[in-house]
């Protein structure tokens, strides 16, 4: 979805050339608008990185320094050594990785069953599952907490993993994609005695990379970034995710801003790196899911 391939934008319709040739800028005048605007969007994040390498003395004077005098890694040393950021990082990674993997596996299985297999109750079940997508999380969070408590999972990563094992969204996104694939290949393999599972694994999934990456990207983003559910399900700091750890850490280290910002960088870095390396997949996933949702 690169905007450069777009057919002539409306504003490019120029009136006929005027008599007196105006002096033209060596670049499009739109840069004068876009450059400062886009920098304004980036500025808070630049400031985040800058302040994470400042000393607390630089930050805590008024007016505070706007540019670090040198690179001071004290904040990073503190959060990696004294605080539990490495532990929280690992927790977040485990929860997100399991959620991504299981959404891909169970989403593909469920999506394939709905797309290609005829079985009793499939229509009713599909409509029922679609309907549950309209239930907001705030409605289910209190009973979900009670269920997790009864299962003895509160304060464990299990409480975070189980609700995100598979979402109806993943099932339906993959179902729609599978439906768009030609059937002939699959049926031929199937008649030749290939099991459904082998057909799915060997023929369907290799063709479904765009849809699978959409599921992976969106699952990773939502589980990594979630705060509400960890806040409810986790009390003990050894089980915190990064988001929960970061906000708690900020509450406890109110004036150690350099350390807080170092922790913040660590929290956003994986998402940021993933986004920068797979920008196309990210934007495509978000656009397609948005337009389909």
């Amino acid at each position, binding site marked *: *979805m690169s*905007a450069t391939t*777009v057919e002539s934008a*409306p504003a490019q*319709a120029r*009136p006929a050339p005027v008599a007196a040739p105006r002096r033209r800028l060596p670049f499009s005048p739109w840069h004068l608008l*876009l*450059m400062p605007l*886009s*920098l304004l*969007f980036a500025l*808070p*994040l630049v*400031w*985040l990185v800058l302040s994470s390498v400042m000393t607390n003395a630089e*930050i805590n004077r*008024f*007016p*505070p320094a706007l540019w670090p005098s040198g690179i001071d890694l004290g904040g990073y040393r503190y959060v990696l050594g004294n605080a539990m950021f490495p532990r929280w990082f690992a927790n977040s990674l485990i929860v997100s990785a399991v959620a991504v993997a*299981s959404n891909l596996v169970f989403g593909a*299985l469920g999506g*394939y*069953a709905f797309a290609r*297999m005829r*079985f009793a109750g499939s229509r009713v079940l*599909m409509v029922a599952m*679609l*309907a*549950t997508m*309209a*239930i*907001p999380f*705030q*409605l*289910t*969070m*209190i*009973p979900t*907490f*009670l*269920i997790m408590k009864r299962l003895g999972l509160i304060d464990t990563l299990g409480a975070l993993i189980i*609700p995100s094992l*598979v979402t109806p969204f993943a099932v*339906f996104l993959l179902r*729609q994609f599978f439906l*768009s694939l030609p059937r002939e290949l699959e049926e031929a393999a199937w008649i030749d005695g290939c099991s459904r599972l082998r057909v799915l694994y060997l023929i369907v999934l290799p063709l479904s990379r765009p849809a699978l990456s959409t599921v992976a990207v969106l699952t990773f*983003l939502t589980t990594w*970034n979630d*705060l509400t559910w960890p*806040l409810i399900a986790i009390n003990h700091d050894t089980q915190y995710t990064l*988001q929960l750890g970061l906000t708690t850490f900020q509450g406890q280290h109110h*004036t150690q*801003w350099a350390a807080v910002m170092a922790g913040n960088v660590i*929290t*956003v870095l994986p*998402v940021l790196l993933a986004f920068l390396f797979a*920008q196309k997949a990210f934007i495509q996933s978000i656009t397609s899911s*948005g*337009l*389909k949702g």
Partner: protein
Amino acid sequence: MSSLPAPLTLSDHDRRQRTLRRRRRRETATAWAYILPAVLVVLGLSVVPFVWSLLLSFRADDLVTPSRWVGVDNYDALTQDPHFSQAVRNTLLYTGLYVPLSMALGLFLALVLNRRIKLVGLYRTLIFVPFVISATAQGVLFSFILDPEFGAANSVLHALGIGRQGFLTDPGQALAVLVAISVWSGTGFCVVIYLAALQDVPPSLLEAARLDGAGRWQLLRHVVMPTLTPVSLFLVLWQTINALQVFDLVYVTTKGGPLGSTTVIVYFIWEQAFKNFTAGYGAAAAYVLALALLVIGVASRLVRGRKPAGAVLAEGGAK
């Protein structure tokens, strides 16, 4: 399927069809095995809690001791609770500001970005990046930037000769500041959605209008904007639903304060259920919110004149 009279000789095609049919019949068990994990999670953590929440909203429950039935008392109390009505007002104000601002800015930036100039990809990336940052990280970052004493914002204002602002600590400013943070992070989403939609504006239509002598503004108003209407409707719905559910950012930055000026509905629900341990009361508030979301969803379907969600999904997926 109507059964045809059996032919005397089986052609290759017929044999294949019969094999297919026979194998299909044995499939129900396999299919159920495939969807079972999804069904279990959805049933256990969506359908059961949905019903449980409703029952809970008719009870007084502190999440520890056995609850007791109180009928519609929780709902009654909600209508008289000034904190709840304040939360509703705050949420509506937040939504009413955030949705139009993010969409207008998003549309404007998309129109500007939708042209062939250098660096356009970089601009788009910079504008979109805040969207992938978690609300927690945003909240912590802006608590720092907007810190009345140590923040860079006041430092810049100081340099400009403007006095120190309270920002998130000022009851008169806090909600507006939250809107601004959300616009910063949420506009990128509107931009990419609008940019994708702008690519679907038929070039032939633009060309025809241009030949008919339409100027820039007329092209925008009469050709581009009408083709964007469905996407705009979708964005209104999407942004509104998300705005009504705002929580993380509020929790991280203001915890509903100062003086309740940023207590939104979900914060109210969370506070009732997990801080005050009045789960039944929280569940009742959650049902009020869910009902509002449902009404908005149904209304938008009526406006769009579309079929149920499944059909919309199917249409999108068929592309």
